[in-house]
């Protein structure tokens, strides 16, 4: 990376995957068997040699810290790089004021301690692989002080409940607005709520936001600036993007990774490293009567039953005679002998042991809370 970058991962604007995100922030929700959403964002930075990173935590920041573990998981050099989790402790009892901008204001040292030319602000609920080096060059070429990334698409279902941007002929944002029912079947430019901002302007934004509204968020202030102060450049993202902003989308998008095409786009090939904290799990054991087809499986699993079209997290056990179809099972889930489950997401340490049939549907998947015994 030619330019020095400060990357900010904004967890204040994270989507709600209720009931999955009742017990943990979306950023550290299990994804694709061995990862979390945060891993994708941070690994994108790592691969682009961006190693000044601040994570703005809204709540349950201990779970973020626990997942990150050692800086060396994501930073190429732990002396020259910085990975900080920031929280606005004074606003914890006053959730309305617990915004990303107030968090930054409270922890403004991060701006002064990290030299840089540009600031990247991004969310974790859009999963994509981008080349930040190229995006920064595009931003510089635009001669604007702010750029926003967008994805042109006709996939209304995938991006429902997101914002869209009206982009003018020279590539500037004319309008940000919520996607609505009338957008079905139309080509829309989805705002990925990911920004590249010149460093000096970003510092001004943080200060200025306070004088406009104490409740403003970074997307709010960008919207405000685009209307009243200066043009916001729009940069198209050509790579594949998945949006995780509801429980149903979490389930369906997770299972879509099992298809070679989508899995290849998101999980990449051997050369596309995705970094994550590790657990020293052994390789997967397949028993003599295991029957597995169409699956993404993390280490530590023991499989003796039938598995079809599933994502299995770490240390999952599928006993002989069990049948598991269209399921996302988090770590340490156990499916006992003779149990048949389908179309569900089980949180960590669930045991399916007595009820022989547990089924959701593809459009209405079941959720099994962590630690449940079924």
């Amino acid at each position, binding site marked *: 990376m030619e330019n020095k970058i400060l990357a900010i991962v904004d967890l204040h604007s994270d989507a709600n995957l209720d009931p999955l995100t009742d017990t943990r922030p979306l950023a550290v929700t299990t994804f*694709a*068997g*061995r990862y979390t959403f945060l891993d994708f964002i941070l690994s994108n930075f790592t691969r682009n040699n961006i190693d000044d990173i601040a994570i703005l935590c809204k709540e349950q920041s201990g779970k973020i810290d626990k997942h990150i573990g050692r800086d060396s998981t994501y930073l190429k050099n732990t002396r020259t790089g910085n990975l900080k989790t920031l929280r606005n402790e004074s606003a914890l009892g006053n959730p309305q004021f617990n915004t990303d901008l107030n968090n930054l204001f409270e922890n403004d040292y991060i701006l002064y301690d990290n030299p840089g030319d540009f600031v990247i602000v991004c969310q974790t609920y859009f999963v994509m692989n981008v080349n930040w080096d190229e995006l920064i060059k595009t931003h510089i070429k635009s001669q604007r002080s702010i750029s926003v990334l967008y994805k042109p698409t006709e996939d209304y279902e995938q991006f429902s409940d997101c914002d869209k941007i009206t982009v003018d002929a020279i590539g500037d944002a004319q309008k940000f607005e919520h996607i609505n029912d009338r957008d079905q079947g139309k080509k829309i430019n989805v705002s990925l709520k990911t920004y590249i901002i010149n460093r000096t302007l970003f510092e001004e934004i943080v200060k200025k936001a306070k004088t406009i509204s104490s409740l403003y968020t970074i997307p709010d202030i960008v919207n405000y600036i685009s209307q009243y102060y200066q043009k916001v450049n729009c940069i198209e993202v050509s790579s594949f993007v998945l949006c995780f902003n509801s429980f149903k989308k979490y389930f369906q998008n997770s299972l879509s990774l*099992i298809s*070679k095409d989508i*899995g290849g786009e998101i*999980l*990449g090939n*051997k050369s596309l*490293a*995705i*970094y*994550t904290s*590790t*657990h*020293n799990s*052994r*390789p*997967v*054991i*397949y*028993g*003599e*009567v*295991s*029957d*597995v*087809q*169409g*699956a*993404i*499986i*993390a*280490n*530590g699993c023991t499989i003796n039953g039938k*598995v079809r079209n599933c994502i299995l997290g770490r240390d999952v056990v599928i006993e002989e005679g069990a049948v598991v179809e269209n399921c996302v099972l988090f770590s340490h889930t156990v499916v006992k002998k003779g149990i048949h489950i389908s179309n569900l997401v089980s949180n960590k340490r669930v045991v399916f042991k007595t009820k022989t049939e547990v089924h959701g549907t593809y459009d209405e998947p079941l959720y099994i809370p962590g630690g449940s015994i079924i």
Partner: protein
Amino acid sequence: MSRKIVAMILAGGKGTRLEALTKRIAKPAVYFGGKYRIIDFCLSNVANSSIDCVGVLTQYESVVLNHYVSNGEIWGFDGVDNVCVALPPRQTETGANWYRGTADAIYQNLDFLDDEDPEYILILSGDHIYKTTYDQMLATHIKSGADCTIDVMEVDRKEASRFGILEVDNKDNITKFVEKPAEPKSNLASMGVYIFTYKVLRKALVDDAKDPNSEHDFGKNIIPTMLAQNKKMVAYRFSGYWKDVGTLTSLHQANMELLPSNRNANTIKFNEAPAIYGEDTHSRPQYVGPKAVIKNCLINQGAYISGDIEDSVVSNEVEIKEGAKVTRSVLMPGVVVGKNAVVNNCILGPNTAIKDGEKINEGKDEIVLIDKERELE
């Protein structure tokens, strides 16, 4: 800083009988069990014994092993006051010497040991597969007041001539030690695991270094000499799974013994304590395709399975393409088995590519090694 015990791991051997697998890496760095390298067992055993200082004596093709050992982070030796260091031969004021034997390797690093100032020293071989902790052995060594304690296990008499064989009295005091005897009089085999009282070993090593007729080997020189000097030497009996994976057949067999169908009370189980730590590669989770068939296998993350595989151990970044059939084989990292290929009773070395439709060892019982630099027919 004084330490109670320091571990020294002998990891410099070539492992000639592993053929092409050790062409560019030392035997302890050879892959095992889908995720591990052979030396992971030894270093994990040391870590699980709360020993906080370990030297790894490397020599033959040491670059990969030195890099792998690094600062010992994989096994947790990067904590406060821990030391984990690779110790290849080096140039000193008096010149440069290769390690001339197992005892000489320790002798040439007496300065390292003197700095750590241990009360006891644990000598290990870096090429054995077994799970243990050395706490009880050390306690036995201290309690018995021995100068040297040797880990031993009972082996089949017919196999005994492959090992260093000990004879003991009724209190397990060692009375005789013969390295690879033609006609063994006991079935107690040395596992190549020794605990010495450091001061005693130090003197023995210094004396041995002066002996022009010595091969500077623990089994051939140090142990017999100490016995001849009436040093107190005790056998510590180990019961459990222990394997010297020195040949292709034994390496293949040890891998096969990890599979569910071959498990018994003694075989290695990775999910049971004590844990074995290995490098956790930044691999994707493993992918199983819509037509895959997998039975009785151990498969690491990063593998991409679209074909049929049975009774096999598969490492990270292995790809088995559609229509391929793999049976009773060990696939090391980066192997690609092409469409409709057949692989049977094989060890496929790292990054080996099997072409579409190729048949390797089909219908045969002997174990073959296929290396990435094999001559293609």
